[in-house]
């Protein structure tokens, strides 16, 4: 199943070239990546120990920070050509994030947390509309696919278990079919036996929605079902890779 709804279909989901990034006040580059490409719908496991610049790379791909050199394109759109505001909107429309922990606003219900992604993105709403489903219905559908019962959806996020929170975060990343899902150690707070289950759920939903998945973790045991496994230490040539995380 390939993406027919996500924008930039046929383009690479992520294309990085000649990237150099140095944190402000740092003495050396944190990231130096000559080339990194995810084709549309591709699910990539990016391995990197902590301190290897993983989160910096994700911030660059998310357009939250800008590289000193090189280019990052998402869904065929070079991020540097967008204004700051346009980059924020582009991120809202095309990228779903799942973090290690604390993905949710504690004072909103699980449902409102999922719908939050749609509130910030007209494009996600438009894609749902084109598919003929309401945001509410899609949130409920994703929740049931991710084994969240209806009762959990109504509860404040702060009352959910960590596992439930991570599944709500996954639903929020996926709603409205963004072309790219970025997951940053999303399983590290889960029990060992739940980790693989969560990864499988995420892989399955990305496949179902046609989204590319950039999954970052230090734990190679989870890499089994991915299309490709990359090692950040090998593609990052920066000498001072441990300068930032």
């Amino acid at each position, binding site marked *: 199943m390939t993406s027919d709804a996500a924008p930039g279909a046929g383009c690479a989901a992520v294309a990085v070239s000649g990237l150099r990034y140095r944190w402000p006040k740092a003495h050396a580059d944190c990231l130096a990546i000559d080339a990194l490409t995810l084709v549309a719908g591709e699910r990539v496991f990016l391995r990197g120990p902590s301190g290897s610049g993983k989160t910096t790379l994700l911030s660059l791909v998310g357009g939250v*920070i800008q590289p000193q050199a090189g280019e990052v394109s998402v869904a065929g759109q070079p991020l540097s050509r967008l204004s700051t505001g346009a980059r924020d909107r582009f991120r809202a429309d095309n990228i779903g994030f799942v973090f290690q922990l604390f993905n949710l606003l*504690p004072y909103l219900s699980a449902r409102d947390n999922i719908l939050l992604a749609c*509130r910030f993105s007209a494009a996600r709403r438009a894609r749902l509309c084109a598919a003929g489903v309401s945001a509410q219905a899609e949130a409920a559908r994703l929740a049931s696919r991710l084994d969240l019962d209806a009762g959990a959806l109504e509860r404040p996020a702060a009352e959910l278990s960590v596992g439930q929170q991570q599944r709500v975060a996954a639903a929020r990343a996926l709603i409205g079919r963004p072309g790219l899902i970025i997951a940053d150690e999303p399983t590290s707070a889960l029990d060992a036996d739940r980790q693989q289950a969560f990864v499988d759920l995420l892989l399955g939903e990305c496949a179902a929605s046609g989204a590319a998945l950039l999954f970052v973790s230090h734990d190679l045991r989870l890499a089994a079902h991915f299309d490709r496994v990359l090692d950040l230490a090998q593609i990052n040539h920066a000498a001072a890779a441990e300068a930032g995380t």
Partner: protein
Amino acid sequence: MTPVLALSLRSIGNRRLSVVLTVIAVALSVALLLGVERLSNDAREGFAQTISGTDLVVGARGGAVQLLLYSVFHIGNASNNVSWQSMERIAALPQVKWLVPISLGDSHRGMRVVGTTADFFAHYRHGADRALAFGQGRVFAVAPDGIFEAVVGAEVAARFGYRPGQRIVLSHGSLGGEGGPRFADHADKPFTIVGVLARTGTPVDRSVLVGLEGIEAIHIDWHGGAPIPGLSIAPEQVRKFDLSPKSVTAALVGLDSRIAVFRVQRQINTMAGEPLTAILPGATLQELWSLVGMAERALLAVSALVVAVGLAGLVAVVVASLGERRRELAILRALGASPLQIFALLAFESLLLSLAGIVLGLALLYGVVVVAAPWLSAQYGLNLAPDWPSAGEWRLLGAVLGASLAASLVPAWRAYRYSLADGLTIRI
């Protein structure tokens, strides 16, 4: 921007307790600031209107403030009296509508005795053109029937428990309070209280008012401030004597038209035969108030500081919450919120809280005004009305709002910096 504002409200709701306490702190400081402004305004107005219907106060040649102090506030003494002939000449001036003579110099248990005519009750005005009203009884009767009748002010009646029908003895001299020097009692000629005035918040409350003939009658067997030895005239016999006053202390003058006030003032000041001073009571009251005004400004400055403390507390609460909310901000960034939206979120939040504080403070003030107004009016003659905020109060509110706007930029700016520095890195 709309999702951000909606989120802001939810986020505030999530931190109810600290938010409510902060809003209450701001509300109290705003209520204090406006309360002080309103009270001092009303006190100033009340003071300026201690004597409002009178166009000129006339006394012996001397300073304007001194004349006002002894004739209206009953503080200090006149250096000289004014002859009755001068009174008649002033009353005969074509622009003069009425003239109420005042004769001071005696006291009753520390309260001043004011010798005057029944016209005093017709023409004396205080506040916004309020006439004297009787709580009980009536005006003293015209001589000779009412020679030994007295009307007492509300404070006098309240302090000594006086009612119409009671008899009181006046004392010669008026220095000091109840324990101050009195030279002798006019014990042989007691007065009967026939009326008690309603409270005015003016020195009238602390006065015993009698007819000019009564003042003459108690001094008929006196000379030079002491009883004439061997001479004693009984009250029943005084009616046989000429009790028309020879001189008085001062006079309140009303004109047909205010426009003539400076001309009449000049005429009186330059009147041949006797050196006199005529003053405009309003202007002199303003002059007096400027002496008292320092305290008023100091009070206002203190309450402005209290507002600053309230707003500083608000900023502290919002900034302190930022530490825990960095994660929240990073989530919003990941979802597509721009740093400017984060800035707006925090600015909106602090502004909303201070606005809530201002509104609550106003409500508090009006609540207190409504509850306390009757008591303040009865106890101090201060007339607080739950009016719309005056221009000065709007300016104060504007200043508070401006200060809270400036204060709201502090957490907003910090959040903006956080959201740029943190990016998507959620540091725990």
